[in-house]
């Protein structure tokens, strides 16, 4: 095992973490501000990927597609909030889970109806194609580095938005005491719609970025959604900082587990068995980590005050 391989795997973990952060940030924001469990967050991720693929195919430009994905996901999120989600804030979590699960089915079949059953094509823009050399003699895919960059920019942007702007102040106030900020004359309904659209746009961005790496197909959002839930549970529900640290922890642990566990097992048992057993253990690893963290910090690493 060379240093180059280790660096490459660490970057892979970081890139997966950053992608998860984009999903988890919106999810945790929506839960923190509105107390809503949104299972359909993965559908917004899918909407972003399909919008990007369709617009990129029509215009020939990935960048226009990327802008379209932000707009489409934010619009889908806003419409979803106004028509369905708004009625769920006062209900208990079971009703929210049922209603947003129904939204998953509606989005999936609606997308199939519009785009058909076959996966769409979305390629990496020419500017970001290929690989760049790494210190230690390895190579790394340029596009993945760009995703890491986007994630860092979004994290910094969210930090400023929440700590330095009027909207951010209202979001924080909304998390702390809903009734009070409504009594102070803040239009809480609009605030909720804006927060929901913001979270949706972040999910759409993640979908579009990842769509160029993998296949753009119906149902692509749900696996990412499960990981995003693990991230926000580890990070502390409602905390953006927790989402960032949780996402990077999950990304790195998952990647390194997939890489190192089969190798470690191969030292102890025959290689033919080490492969499948190691792979099975690696797929459990992040859940084991989650269980351990919850055992010691039941409300996550950076629990929001409640």
């Amino acid at each position, binding site marked *: 095992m060379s240093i180059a391989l280790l660096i490459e795997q660490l970057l892979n973990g970081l890139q997966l973490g950053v992608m998860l952060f984009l999903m988890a940030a919106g999810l945790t924001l929506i839960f923190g501000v509105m107390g809503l469990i949104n299972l359909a967050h993965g559908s917004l991720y899918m909407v972003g990927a399909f919008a990007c693929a369709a617009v990129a195919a029509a215009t020939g430009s990935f960048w226009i597609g990327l802008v379209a994905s932000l707009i489409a996901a934010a619009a889908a999120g806003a419409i979803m909030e106004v028509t369905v989600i708004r009625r769920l804030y006062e209900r208990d979590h079971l009703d929210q889970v049922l209603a947003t699960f129904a939204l998953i089915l509606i989005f999936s079949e609606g997308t199939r109806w519009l785009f058909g059953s076959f996966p769409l094509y979305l390629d990496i823009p020419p500017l970001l194609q290929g690989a760049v050399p790494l210190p230690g003699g390895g190579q790394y895919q340029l596009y993945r580095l760009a995703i890491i960059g986007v994630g860092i920019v979004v994290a910094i942007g969210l930090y400023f938005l929440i700590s330095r702007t009027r909207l951010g102040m209202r979001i924080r106030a909304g998390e702390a005491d809903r009734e009070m900020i409504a009594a102070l004359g803040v239009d809480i309904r609009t605030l909720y719609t804006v927060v929901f659209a913001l979270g949706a746009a972040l999910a759409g961005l993640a979908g579009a970025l990842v769509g160029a790496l993998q296949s753009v197909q119906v149902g*692509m959002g749900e696996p990412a959604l499960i990981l995003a839930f693990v991230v926000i549970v580890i990070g502390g529900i409602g905390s953006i900082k927790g989402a960032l640290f949780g996402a990077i922890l999950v990304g790195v642990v998952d990647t390194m587990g997939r890489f190192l566990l089969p190798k470690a097992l191969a030292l102890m048992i025959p290689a033919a068995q080490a492969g499948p057993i190691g792979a099975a253990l690696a797929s459990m690893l992040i859940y084991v980590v989650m269980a351990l963290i919850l055992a010691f910090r039941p409300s996550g690493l950076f629990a929001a005050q409640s």
Partner: protein
Amino acid sequence: MKKIIAAGIFGLSLATSGLAYAEPVKIGVITTLSGGGAGLGVDMRDAFALAMKQSGNKDVELVIEDDAQKPEIAVQLAEKMIQSDKVDLLTGIIWSNLAMAVVPNAVAQDIIYLSPNAGPSALAGAKCNQNYFNVAYQNDNFHEAMGQYANKDYKKTFILAPNYPAGKDSLTGFKRYYKGELAGETYTQVGQTDYAAEIAQIRDSGADSVFFFLPGGMGISFMKQYAQSGVNIPVMGPGFSFDQDILPAVGDAALGVKNSASWSKDLDNEANKAFVEAFQAEYKRLPSVYAAQSWDTANLILSALGKASVKDKDAFRAALKAADFKSVRGEFTFNTNNHPVQNIYVREVIKEGDVLTNKIVGTAFEKHGDAYAEQCKM
């Protein structure tokens, strides 16, 4: 007047008795029409329905239902079709885990099941059944062919498949015929979308080639990421990851890749030409290997219906086993375990104008059966 009526009634009774001979046949089609794997099921259904339509056989009625790629739904649908729809035949399942859930139970109730795709090793060996006909392949077949092919050019192959029964069948099949050294053997998660960690290991392994089996969206993700990673080691795989349903989504990254399948659109026989032409005319897209297998399944059923009544199970099974139909795969016979004996070809991904497709570049096996037939006691 009375005589005329009597003659009329007599004539009618003759006509109805004539109809009674060509009795209606109900075929239950359980396939995946929603979710990530729907592309495969849609191709299966479309080809099957088109073959039935073209035959002009008015007695066949299709009951088509969506299993959503979930074993429990497939089991419920099979029960419903057997108990309340009273289907004579079942077919349609794409995925091996669904086939394992449905087939043993259905054939035990004396329902004949014809597989247009899945071919798990358990059903080919000890658990084979006279009511189970596989018209596609045994799961290991395409992988065996790639292992055989790899011997020609490669000495150190890195192999990769998802961690589930068909994935293990796949690597077992490859290793059964591959004589070189393995640079690595990795199992990935089912439904995995990011292969950066695996690609890094491939880069580090010193392999001279990569063999992977990643069906559906998994293969698309892998190929796109591999092409951008800067790794230049040649890849190969079974035809599933390079078929007509996913090539448009993979794009030029797939060009030149060698893959194995029992069928290709350029296979030179009359039945295949007619099939490709009819499918394209009807659906405005090229057929996949799933469509081809499904077309053959439909035509096999039609050939058997022409020979025997579906109610006479023994005669109908014998008529199926004769495989007296024009397969789009050329020569096709059934082995002792009711699985195909057929040629497996090596194909290469090429571009015809703007369309990515496959052409045959070699034959890995001629008249190839499977490794499990000996364990089948029928």
